[in-house]
């Protein structure tokens, strides 16, 4: 069958000397991580001010995963994110105001208010819009990977899921199918210690990355607070996928620093655990690394932080001012023409 692999659109960089050698890439990654933090902090405030339709699901301490993965693949690859992955959306070009518009049920949200809150995506940016059910985006990602392979293209699919989602049978079926069919798919396990209130010990009896061996695919474990480590693991998985070597599971270990969503005070999380993880803020860690590498000064880092804070404020203002949808065409689009 087709063995020549057509190039998909977009570039992904695998700089010589690793990602840290590329100042421009590092700064863009840092800015996107900082923007995720700023946007989510602003949305938490909006939630507390009673502006949001429902709760707000944040990705504090998931920024290195969202951005590190998205930066290591191409724009033409099929991205299947979840609610902790705002940074991946931002990396692809989703404007912050549009994410807020989704949480506000606005006409300008990615679904025009037909879906909302954390369910958004942009087909034009090759971002799948997931439904509530986890891990439904995982089998869907295998389908995207299948389509690339079917057409003889060297694109790949990348999906995210939490530790909790791995308990569902659909997850195992998708992993098994991806391995059996050698699909160009990257599975990103965001191990953030809790599935809503359920701690890891009630979710799994083995390390997630080790389970990859059971499907016959490589499984790697990385520090999910380290954007460089996440990027490099993803870049290697992408290389394998594009070379026809099949799927990879990457377990990114981090902590869910907020509740499942903002309505949840997460009283079930030991305070000392939060205190320990607070020392490992991925945004801070990357900022320090950039300074150490000589890619940015403290003043430059501060300027980026202020810049993204202003962007988040402006995003709120636009999103709040945008119109609500009108129900005149509510029955249209149930079926495609």
């Amino acid at each position: 069958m087709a063995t020549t692999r057509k190039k998909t659109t977009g570039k992904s960089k695998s700089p010589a000397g690793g990602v840290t050698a590329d100042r421009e890439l590092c700064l863009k990654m840092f800015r996107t991580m900082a923007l995720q933090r700023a946007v989510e902090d602003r949305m938490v405030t909006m939630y507390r001010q009673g502006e949001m339709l429902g709760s707000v699901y944040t990705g504090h301490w998931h920024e290195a995963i969202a951005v590190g993965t998205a930066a290591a693949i191409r724009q033409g690859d099929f991205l299947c994110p979840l609610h902790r992955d705002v940074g991946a959306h931002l990396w692809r070009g989703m404007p912050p105001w549009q994410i807020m518009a989704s949480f506000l049920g606005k006409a300008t949200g990615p679904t025009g208010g037909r879906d909302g809150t954390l369910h958004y995506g942009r087909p034009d940016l090759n971002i799948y819009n997931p439904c509530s059910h986890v891990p439904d985006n995982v089998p869907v990602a295998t389908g995207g990977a299948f389509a690339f392979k079917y057409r003889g293209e060297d694109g790949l699919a990348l999906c995210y899921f939490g530790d909790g989602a791995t308990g569902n049978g659909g997850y195992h079926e998708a992993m098994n199918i991806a391995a059996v069919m050698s699909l160009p798919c990257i599975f990103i396990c965001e191990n953030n210690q809790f599935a809503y209130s359920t701690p890891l010990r009630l979710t799994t009896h083995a390390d997630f990355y080790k389970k990859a061996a059971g499907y016959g695919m490589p499984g790697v474990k990385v520090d999910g607070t380290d954007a460089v480590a996440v990027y490099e693991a993803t870049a290697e998985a992408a290389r394998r996928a594009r070379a026809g070597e099949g799927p990879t599971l990457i377990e990114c270990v981090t902590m869910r620093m907020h509740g499942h969503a903002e309505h949840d005070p997460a009283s079930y999380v030991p305070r000392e655990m939060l205190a320990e993880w607070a020392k490992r803020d991925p945004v801070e860690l990357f900022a320090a690394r950039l300074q150490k590498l000589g890619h940015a000064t403290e003043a430059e880092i501060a300027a980026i932080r202020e810049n993204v804070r202003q962007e988040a404020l402006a995003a709120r203002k636009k999103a709040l001012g945008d119109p609500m949808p009108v129900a005149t065409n509510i029955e249209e689009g149930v079926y495609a023409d």
Partner: protein
Amino acid sequence: MPTNKEQVAEEVTYLDAISQALAAEMERDESVFLMGEDVGQFGGAFKISKGFMERFGARRVVDTPIAENGFTGMAAGAAICGLRPVVEFQFADFISQAFDPIINVMARHHYRTGVPVPVTLRCPFGGRLRAGPTHSQSIESYFAHVPGLKIVAPATVEDAAGLLISSIRDNNPVLFLESKYLYRRLKVPAPLSLEPTPLGVAKVAREGTDVTLVSYSVGVQQGLEAAEVLAREGISVEVIDCRTLVPLDIDTIVKSVKKTSRAVVLHEAARRLGYGAEIASEIGEACFWFLDAPVTRIAALNTPIPTSPPLEDAVLPQTEEVIETLRKVARS
């Protein structure tokens, strides 16, 4: 009975029609492919895809693990990314393991995003093969409630081909319900037309004046048999073949009932909330002032479908019951 296509080249069965239509669509459109359990090297449990592997190769005839949830979700993703998967469920009964990707991914995706999900879900369904409670089910009602899905149930050899072609070309998820019972029992002289039959257009399978029988799939064949018997008694039965349940061509049904002023709805699914309840309700709303008798349903008992012949026959509608009910309604 010969099952090999070469031996019966002068005849085309309902099963052959599905096979020929599927092959023709795969020839016509490179983005169409078949996936499911045992569909490749084995040719499928019912041999719909016999010879496909040699003809189209493993890239387009995809054997999957036993993973209905996983491979149906995969089909959704492939369709979202531009392919047109045809998924074979080995038995319609197994589709329960794929409810989630069908209902929460496929059926809602276009409404939420504007991106079409063109998937054909082929489901060999129904009873009368002594296959028991988990191999004989009629699944249409589970899905008819879900906006965003289409449901197709051919009753004839010609429609098995024409409706499958339209289903594959449709830009929505379509449940294609294939009657296992009719697979090898129904045949027409070859060659078969491979032109698409539009979805959402019912057919008057037999014209009549005294009572309208509305059905789909195997029920239409039963209705035609019953109509033949009743014609000898001077009762004229009009048989309507719905062909597609979603969208339902209610206009053709209403037109017939207004003419005959009597309606019987027949299906093999269980009576309670069977699709007949929807059809009866639509008739009641549209034809109230035209009716000379209550709209009557004939359906399976509200039990699982037993295996042993005397038990299964007691649960599923039999032609004798169809004749009696039509006679009673026609004379009321």
